[in-house]
């Protein structure tokens, strides 16, 4: 996939701006706070129907305005017939009132249907949180990958989450009212169980396929000197979801929530058989999450048979010159396609590309009040 044209209207700090991008590297340079990342945010929104940084719609509107609109003209290369399909995605959003996303002029009745249509991988400075924070961010990483690959996964997950929430509320009410209705809980269990088993199965299969790619990219980035692993942990490894719900019922009633299930899953990252979070250095963690993201890209590419868009926000920050050059060489080869890079120094970027011998990129320089194509 590649993005040819992007138009932002009243989005973040842009009143109205249009960009034309190339099929290889695209660079956005400018000082801090000029809105480089906002352009990436807009691309993300058109692909995933929401902010990649967890921002609310009302935080995406230009200050003082009541709506924003994004337009993107995407091209989809079909390798089998060597033809290109055009996809025009438009997002019209009035926060709190209306949110419409349309593909080639036809609005989606369910936004989730769009997720995965244009696969995307976003590499951001805050990716180290994948290692540092709780299981929720790692489940989100799994879910974002799987929902782009598997069309029904997102529905199953949303249904599962809602059912668990209802079950938890029921448990809470029983505790407050000092009574218990086994039939109602059975009703939730019987709906949750098949979904939980399905999600567990899909996640396990995903991690199995993901792991070789991860190890490949990690050794490529670090020179293969470190022993790393990424293991999927789920309470469903011991027993099926139905059994867990049944066995844990007394505990669930006490805790007033559902204590076991795929909503408690996690990925264990380790370095030389020790937990990465405790024993990894800044640089080791950075290489680790970069390999995670590149493997995510590779698997999306294999499954979707199209090249995802790759967004690199401020990646070269904190990396030494030789690593940056290595990374650029890697990204300029197959399977990588269209890539967006943000950087604070426009001159440094220019020199970097000149040294690497890669064809010079489309380069936008973002300055106060103006965006210039170099």
């Amino acid at each position, binding site marked *: 996939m590649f993005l040819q044209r992007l138009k932002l209207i009243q989005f973040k700090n842009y009143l109205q701006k249009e960009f034309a991008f190339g099929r290889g590297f695209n660079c956005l340079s400018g000082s801090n706070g000029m809105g480089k990342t906002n352009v990436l945010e807009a691309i993300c929104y058109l692909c995933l129907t929401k902010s990649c940084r967890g921002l609310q719609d009302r935080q995406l509107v230009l200050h003082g305005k009541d709506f924003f609109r994004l337009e993107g003209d995407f091209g989809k290369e079909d390798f089998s017939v060597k033809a290109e399909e055009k996809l025009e995605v438009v997002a019209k959003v009035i926060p709190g009132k209306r949110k419409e996303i349309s593909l080639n002029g036809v609005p989606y009745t369910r936004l989730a*249907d769009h997720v995965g249509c244009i696969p995307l991988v976003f590499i951001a400075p805050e990716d180290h949180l994948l290692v540092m924070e709780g299981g929720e961010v790692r489940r989100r990483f799994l879910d974002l990958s799987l929902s782009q690959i598997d069309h029904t996964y997102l529905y199953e997950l949303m249904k599962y989450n809602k059912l668990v929430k*209802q079950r938890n509320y*029921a448990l*809470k*009410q029983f505790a407050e009212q000092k009574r218990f*209705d086994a*039939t*109602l809980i059975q009703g939730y269990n019987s*709906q949750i169980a098949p979904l939980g088993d399905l999600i567990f199965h899909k996640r396990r299969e995903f991690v199995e396929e993901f792991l070789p790619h991860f190890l490949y990219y990690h050794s490529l980035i670090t020179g293969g000197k470190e022993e790393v692993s990424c293991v999927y942990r789920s309470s469903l490894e011991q027993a099926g979801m139905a059994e867990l719900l049944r066995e844990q019922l007394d505990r669930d009633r006490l805790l007033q929530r559902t204590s076991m299930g795929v909503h408690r899953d996690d990925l264990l990252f380790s370095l030389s058989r020790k937990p990465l979070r405790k024993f990894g250095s800044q640089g080791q963690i950075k290489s680790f999450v970069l390999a995670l993201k590149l493997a995510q890209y590779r698997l999306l590419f294999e499954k979707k048979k199209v090249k995802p868009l790759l967004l690199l926000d401020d990646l070269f920050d904190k990396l030494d010159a030789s690593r940056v050059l290595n990374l650029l060489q890697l990204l300029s080869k197959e399977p990588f396609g269209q890539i967006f890079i943000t950087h604070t120094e426009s001159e440094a970027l220019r020199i970097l590309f000149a040294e690497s011998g890669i064809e010079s990129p489309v380069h936008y320089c973002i300055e106060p009040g103006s965006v210039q194509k170099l």
Partner: protein
Amino acid sequence: MNYPSKFLEDAVMAFASLPGIGKKTALRLVLHLLQQDKDKVDEFMQAISKMRHQLKHCKKCHNISDQELCNICANPSRDPSLICVVENLRDLIQIENTGTYKGLYHVLGGIINPLEGIGPEQLNIQSLIQRSKEKEVKELIMAISPTIEGDTTIFYIARLAQRPELKISVLARGISFGGELEYADEITLSRSIKARRPYGQT
């Protein structure tokens, strides 16, 4: 808006509290009533007041009714072996309007949704279970939307009501009548394929 009279303002506000009516429409209605004969307005008021005070709920199916039993339950030509379970009056009226259903109803008054604080005990579920135990009842038709809350409610009732002679069915789910496959979403379509039926039985 400024009104020349406090009485007028109160009346406008009363109308504006109704769903779908804004202040402008409310003012138009109030000015219309102002031009009517006083008797007519009294009649109008009485119609509303009577509706609220005199209207009963059928003791059998919880449909609205003027008597103890609603006119569906009291109608001897309706088939008492069938009970169609609906969420609310609106759904009952919609099914009645199809003119194809000849059995009786049971109005739950909502569906189970702990998030909104609605548990089984707030709904007319106990009376339904009692009814379903009567010998003449052969089938419960669950005419409840296939949402998470709807499915939970169906499961709950089915579990409590089950006995060997009682058939429990749900409405058919799949491609809508006159719908084109092209516009059906994948989930509906895959469900329709799983629940396909022998040709000629529709």
